[in-house]
């Protein structure tokens, strides 16, 4: 490499680790600060000889290690407990012991990567790969079998003659002055580089095309397309009854589902009370479900004026004295069991929806049979609310 005439420092080579320790001690004692020692392998005791403080690199490792632990734990907490909670092996959503191995791995990963990257960027000043000592005879020798020390010109105490005198007082092998490398200019858009880029682009595009359109359709990569599986609506060759989809075991109860204990009886033997509070949401749900499932026969307001006309027997009005005196449980019971011509709505409506419909029917009954006084009261209230 070409060298400019700007000095970088004065370097001396030594033959043994003991000599270099002595040299480092001497240089430190003289008060030099901007110098470095280069050895082919780590020499024990060098930290003390150079009076080096413990490296700050550990703090980067610690910070990123803790960050890794926090990120892993928080991410798993969010993913497994909040955003997409899934029951795995009957464990709780926040299954800490199961998260520990992943947390450990992420901690180690971030700690080690940050240590290496931190070392290269902060301590080796990465993007700048032009250290003046590169490509010098000095560097070639200290990376084989010599031990070197180099004092920089930037040191406040630097004086070339004095430094050389200092080295000569030690069992040195050779002394040399090191110069900065000559400035070199590189243009990014060199034809060679552009040609290389074009070549890479062509190879990558061609490779991607072949991989996605040809290779994926050859054996063994097409194995996933031919699986021994049951397709929807097709006959099973595995089960003797030929059904692909299996029914659940007798007595299976769906998660969150409570079977109705008075099913098939004439009426509930114990009075049931509506477990839902009459809130706005419940009334809205009840109205919606009533209009979908009940109103075709019972009419929009429960009068029994079927929309189906004469094609279907009309049900009795829900405003009869009998229907009004029924308990909530009786209404619920009929929705589950059905009555006379009315079929069971057990499969169409969930438990909460049925109870919401009961609330809605109660509201309809109240509205249809309200006294004049109550109507005035409601009018007054709605006027006040409008204000």
């Amino acid at each position, binding site marked *: 490499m070409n060298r400019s005439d700007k000095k970088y420092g004065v370097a001396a080579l030594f033959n043994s680790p003991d000599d270099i320790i002595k040299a480092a001690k001497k240089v430190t004692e003289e008060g030099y600060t901007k110098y470095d020692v280069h050895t082919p392998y780590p020499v*024990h*005791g060098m*930290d*003390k000889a150079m009076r080096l403080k*413990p490296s700050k690199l*550990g703090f980067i490792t*610690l910070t990123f290690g803790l960050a890794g632990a926090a990120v892993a734990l928080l991410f798993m907490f969010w993913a497994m407990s909040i955003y997409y909670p899934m029951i795995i*092996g*009957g*464990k709780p959503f926040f299954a800490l*012991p*199961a998260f*520990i*191995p992943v947390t450990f791995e992420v901690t180690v990963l971030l700690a080690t990567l940050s240590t290496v990257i931190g070392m290269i960027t902060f301590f080796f000043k990465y993007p700048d790969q032009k250290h003046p000592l590169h490509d010098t005879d000095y560097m070639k020798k200290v990376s084989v079998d010599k031990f070197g020390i180099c004092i920089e010109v930037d040191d406040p105490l630097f004086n070339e003659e004095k430094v050389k005198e200092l080295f000569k007082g030690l069992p040195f092998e050779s002394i040399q002055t090191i110069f900065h490398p000559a400035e070199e200019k590189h243009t990014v858009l060199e034809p060679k580089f552009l040609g290389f880029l074009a070549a890479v682009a062509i190879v990558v595009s061609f490779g991607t095309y072949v991989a996605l359109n040809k290779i994926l359709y050859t054996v063994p990569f097409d194995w996933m397309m031919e699986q021994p599986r049951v397709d929807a609506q097709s006959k099973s060759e595995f089960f003797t009854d030929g059904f692909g989809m299996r029914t659940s075991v007798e007595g299976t109860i769906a998660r969150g589902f409570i079977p109705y204990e008075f099913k098939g009886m004439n009426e509930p033997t114990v009075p049931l009370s509506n477990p839902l509070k009459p809130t706005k949401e419940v009334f809205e749900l009840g109205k919606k479900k009533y209009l979908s499932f009940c109103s075709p026969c019972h009419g929009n307001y429960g009068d029994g004026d079927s929309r189906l006309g004469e094609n279907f027997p009309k049900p009795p009005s829900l405003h009869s004295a009998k229907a009004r005196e029924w308990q909530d449980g009786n209404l619920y019971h009929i929705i589950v069991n059905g009555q006379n011509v009315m079929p069971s709505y057990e499969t169409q409506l969930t438990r909460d929806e049925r109870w919401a419909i009961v609330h809605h029917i109660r509201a309809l009954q109240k509205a249809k049979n309200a006294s004049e006084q109550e109507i005035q009261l409601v009018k007054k209230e709605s006027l006040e609310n409008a204000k």
Partner: protein
Amino acid sequence: MQSNNSYTKKDLPLDLRNLGFTLLVGGIILGVIAFFLDETRAIFNYLLSFVFIVSIVVGCLFLVALEYVAGADWSTPIRRVSEFISSFIPLLVILVIPLLFSMHDLFHWTHEEAVEGDKILQGKSPYLNIEFFIIRTVLFFVIWNLFYFIIIRNSRKQDKTGDQSLTKKNIIYSAIFIPLFTITITFFSIDWMMSLEPHWFSTIFGVYFFAGSVVGALAAVTLATVLLKEKGYLHPKMVDDHYYSLGALLFAFINFWGYIAFSQYLLIWYANLPEETFWFLARWEGGWIFMSIFLIIIHFVVPYSLLLSQPAKMDPKRLKFVSIWILFAHLIDLYWLIMPQMHSEKSGYFYTILEFAFPIAAIGGLILVFFFNSKKQNLVPVGDPKLDRGLNFRL
């Protein structure tokens, strides 16, 4: 330079002997009182102290063997510390006798009427029966004593002769001892601790005890080394750099213990099989839940944080504190393993305090053994060819 800094033997102060003697006698008196107040508790407590001593002294012999096999020279100047602690091994033969006489109180599987009505215990009876149990225990002690006498005798002979071939011989004996040590310590822990609950099994139990044992042994060696070095009983050329390896090993084995302890818990928790989980559930009931959580903190979190940074591993004050802490944590760990299996009718704080009796005696005994050994022997292996290099060890 060599002449000014060479080792001259100094006797340990008599105060140390008095301290050890006081602790031993005090502990034994308290232990005898405990025995008359609550026999079952006292016997379990004796077992706890016995296992505590075994883990430390056999662990120390393992450290000595490790130095020979690994060819380590940094630990040569302090090898005598491990040797003196491991010289408790011959005394273990006497200590085990009371336990062999009270096996009926300790082990459920020795009850014939219980085994008769229990299919699981019947299946295990070819291994868990009194005769085979005693044969195994004797075998453990024979192996430990044998290697103790061979390795330590060679090491002491070298002080006088300086014969280098003794080191070579010891390397071979150590290489044989280490696999035997892992096997014996595994079966020792299975016999004397896991079989307290004969229906339970964990294949990692031996490794767990091994990890705890090495942590305990290292803590004991570190504590003794720092104290002796501070008072100037060790070689004057030793520097703080020697502490670093002790600190680093402690740190490593604390991690190892945590790793193994967690592995054992994770697998049992994940599989959730009743025949395995009940052991942990017993340690999750009542006051034991605090102990279980406390154990993670004092045996892993605290020493881990205290030893994390590089300067902390070389700081004598820090090491002294951490090694006392770890010895205590190791005792708690064994307590957590053994004591939930004790079913004594008598309970209360008064009886709990009595449980300090035998561990106090154990510590006193260890101090006395150390003292009397140091009287006859050098505290530094002066004839060892690795000593010079060991003393020149620098980071």
